[in-house]
């Protein structure tokens, strides 16, 4: 099983999940987790470029200090729709619904998810929610910020708050069903010999993510429902003019939306664990610690929501508790970074594109994580809260972390998904462009933030211009870096070389079957006989 040698021959055409049946119905009514993953891939790619388009307009507006390209109202809608689209319709479903859907059954040696029809339903629910949100975009947009803070969202804003809220509410159920499906699948459908501590870390991280889906998403559903009810019936839940409490909304909102950050980053961590081991040809350093780390991040992630509210008027003592808990959640994240780095130690490191994304992820996630410590530190948070410092911080996590992980994963599993090889030189080039563009876009924002430039500003004082120009220049490079893979991946589906079953020499079960896999994933039901990531059968070396 130490599959270090490439299978040389390109394959003969044969029946696989892509060509098993034809026609639009065979896709829209499919119960195959792999096809559903591709349905998601198409939908979230659309939303990624839509959200990116909003980002582009934001950056163009900020090229000059005056609010001159678009009006203030339009600008506010742009950053709101950028956040809503990117978070709820791209980042949250990205890795779980595409790569998780495609890979979890294969990684545990199953034919499909536990509830294939439910899986298809999740996608339809996502699409229905997406239509509500798109309707809101087309009919004037929404201007509350993706955070929907009350009482602005309930009492003042004249935009499409209700439609957007309904869209988010509906889409939440798609997350819940996906999470439920993953949890049941991982519990009940593991192949013989696939014990909990033989699961790939990708599966562990999706298990942790699914817990958040199931436990956290109902809270955001209730919260947006309350906003809806308050707006329509003026119940006085959040609006102080009606006897409500605006801070209550922030508690409810962040109780979900902080764990949602971990929904975005944990799956990316899972991707990186797979990529780093494969391209180092090494077992992961500290497997069990890595598994415990994702679970503890998911659990602790539920206890830190108040760190978004240090200057909200929340009590000083509550602030202290949320601050110290936030430092605790940083520790398992740090441990993961150390373990990935240690995995490379004495490895055989290949510079294929997925590994380049993994290098990028480790560097950018480290910066994102470390600047999170600045924000968890009460005395410093007061100054940088609601400035560009926090914009930079969470883009390092969500773009530098989650999207780098997503792109790394897409490249890594592309031969499995499409049965084709992507063009390596172009892919390496694009990874470099993304890395440079990303840093040029977001690093200046740390400086801007500490200087005091508030977020969500349509116009800004002229002394901030140079840094904003750098950021906008970076964003255009970053945009190009995202368009290049879009082009060559689509190109490769038709013109790419056929992929062997295991082009990287990985030990994962998903590489034991053909590329692309048959509808039932495996010709023979697999049996797991050894630990994951077992590249070398030689006696292991003890370090430290």
């Amino acid at each position, binding site marked *: 099983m130490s599959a270090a040698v490439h299978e040389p021959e390109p394959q003969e055409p044969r029946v696989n999940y892509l060509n098993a049946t034809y026609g639009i119905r065979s896709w829209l009514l499919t119960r195959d987790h792999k096809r559903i993953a591709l349905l998601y891939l198409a939908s979230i790619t659309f939303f990624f470029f839509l959200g990116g388009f909003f980002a582009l307009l934001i950056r163009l507006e900020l090229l000059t200090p005056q609010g001159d390209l678009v009006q203030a109202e339009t600008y506010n809608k742009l950053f709101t729709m950028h956040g809503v689209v990117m978070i709820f319709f791209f980042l949250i479903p990205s890795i779980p619904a595409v790569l998780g859907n495609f890979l979890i059954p294969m990684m545990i040696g199953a034919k499909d998810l536990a509830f294939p029809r439910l899986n298809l339903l999740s996608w339809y629910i996502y699409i229905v929610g997406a239509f509500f949100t798109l309707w809101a975009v087309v009919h004037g947009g929404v201007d509350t910020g993706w955070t929907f*803070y009350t009482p602005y969202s309930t009492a003042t804003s004249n935009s499409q708050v209700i439609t957007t809220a309904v869209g988010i509410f509906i889409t939440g159920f798609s997350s819940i069903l996906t999470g439920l499906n993953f949890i049941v699948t991982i519990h009940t459908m593991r192949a013989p010999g696939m014990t909990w501590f033989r699961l790939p870390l990708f599966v562990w991280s999706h298990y942790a993510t699914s817990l958040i889906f199931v436990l956290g998403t109902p809270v955001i559903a209730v919260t947006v429902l309350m906003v809806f009810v308050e707006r329509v019936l003026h119940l006085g839940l959040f609006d102080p003019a009606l006897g409500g409490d605006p801070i209550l909304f922030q508690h409810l909102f962040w109780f979900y939306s902080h764990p949602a950050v971990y929904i975005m980053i944990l799956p990316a961590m899972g991707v990186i664990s797979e990529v780093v081991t494969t391209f180092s040809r090494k077992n992961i350093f500290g497997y069990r610690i890595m598994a415990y780390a994702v679970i503890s991040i998911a659990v602790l992630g539920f206890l830190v929501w108040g760190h978004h509210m240090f200057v909200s008027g929340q009590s000083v003592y509550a602030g202290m508790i949320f601050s110290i808990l936030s430092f605790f959640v940083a520790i398992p994240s740090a441990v993961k970074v150390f373990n990935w780095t240690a995995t490379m130690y004495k490895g055989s490191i290949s510079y294929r594109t997925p590994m380049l994304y993994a290098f990028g992820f480790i560097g950018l996630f480290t*910066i994102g994580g470390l600047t999170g410590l600045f924000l968890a530190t009460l005395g410093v948070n007061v100054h940088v809260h609601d400035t560009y410092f926090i914009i930079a911080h969470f883009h390092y996590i969500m773009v530098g972390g989650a999207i780098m992980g997503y792109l790394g994963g897409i490249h890594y599993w592309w031969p499995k998904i499409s049965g084709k090889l992507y063009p390596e030189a172009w892919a390496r080039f694009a990874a470099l462009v993304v890395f440079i563009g990303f840093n040029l876009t977001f690093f200046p924002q740390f400086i801007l933030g500490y200087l005091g430039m508030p977020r969500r500003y349509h116009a800004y004082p002229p002394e901030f211009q140079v840094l904003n120009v750098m950021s906008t220049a970076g964003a255009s490079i970053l945009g190009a870096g995202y368009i290049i893979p879009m082009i060559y991946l689509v190109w490769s589906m038709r013109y790419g070389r056929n992929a062997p079953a295991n082009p990287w020499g990985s030990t994962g079960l998903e590489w034991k079957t053909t590329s692309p896999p048959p509808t039932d994933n495996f010709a023979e039901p697999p049996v797991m006989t050894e630990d994951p990531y077992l590249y070398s059968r030689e006696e292991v070396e003890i370090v430290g």
Partner: protein
Amino acid sequence: MGPTLPLFPEQASTMAGRVDALYFYLLAVSGFFAALIALLVIVFAIKYRRRSETELPRGVEGSLKLEVAWSVIPLAIALSFFFWGAKLFFAMNRPPNDALEVYVVGKQWMWKVQHADGQREINELHVPVGRAVRLTMTSEDVIHDFFVPAFRMKKDVLPGRYTTAWFEASKPGRYHLFCAQYCGTKHSAMIGWVHAMEPADYQAWLSGGVASESLAAAGAKLFQRHACNTCHRPDSLARGPNLEGLFGKMVQLSDGRTLIADESYIRESILTPNAKIVMGFQPIMPTFQGLVSEEELLQLVAYVKSLSKPSPAPGPAPATGVSSMPPVHRAAPPPKEKGK
């Protein structure tokens, strides 16, 4: 004027240097760890690069010792951030007692400022250097946030309640005032300037203004105009609690709770009097919701506060005149404690 590239904000308050010191400590530690990780990744990537396609390195067992080390050391460092940050946060939330009182009302999209001496400003705030200034803030509509980067201070300004913040300017100059909490269409236009002035210049500015009367005096007038003084009086005819010496004191409520009489309590007692009934009184006070504006509320609060100052309140004295009655009197009427 050519393009400028500032990299660090001005330090213009006593807190700024303290925040920056912690920030530099964070920067140093983070810089060290970021460099360490980057260096290790680069060194490993080069040193252990794949030299042949069939190369197969030996496995390396994880090490509990290392795992413990790289959990405990970061935790210890993180705790140092926590304690330092918490200490600073406490200082930020504890204004000195002799602070100058300034009252701020935010509304879409402007800042309205009232000084204790009666000066009013819009989108400007004049303060002396070397003197702590305490802001009592509220909003007329949505949530805003009072942010002065040069002072490293920021606090949300909420409708329906008071939040407080303080700073002590240390360097004369003109500094940005930003609204940092998104508040609607013209959020980025809800900006202004804080002018920190030498004490002498500040005195000149105070006397040059058009201030008619102090805030407490304006509050005292409102107190009479709304006939508050017919019930809130120190003598035996009082049907409401005596307000003299009340501010900052412990209050016993009819439901057994106690609380400290602060700005928010006074505000609430004017707008929703029945929310908290003082022990020994009836819930007879009508609400003044809609009758007094946020700015007038702040004047009333300033007046009530002035009744607790050692020096007598400026402006017209309370109509009831002398206030020598012992508080025992007010507990005397038979309490009929059933309502709230």
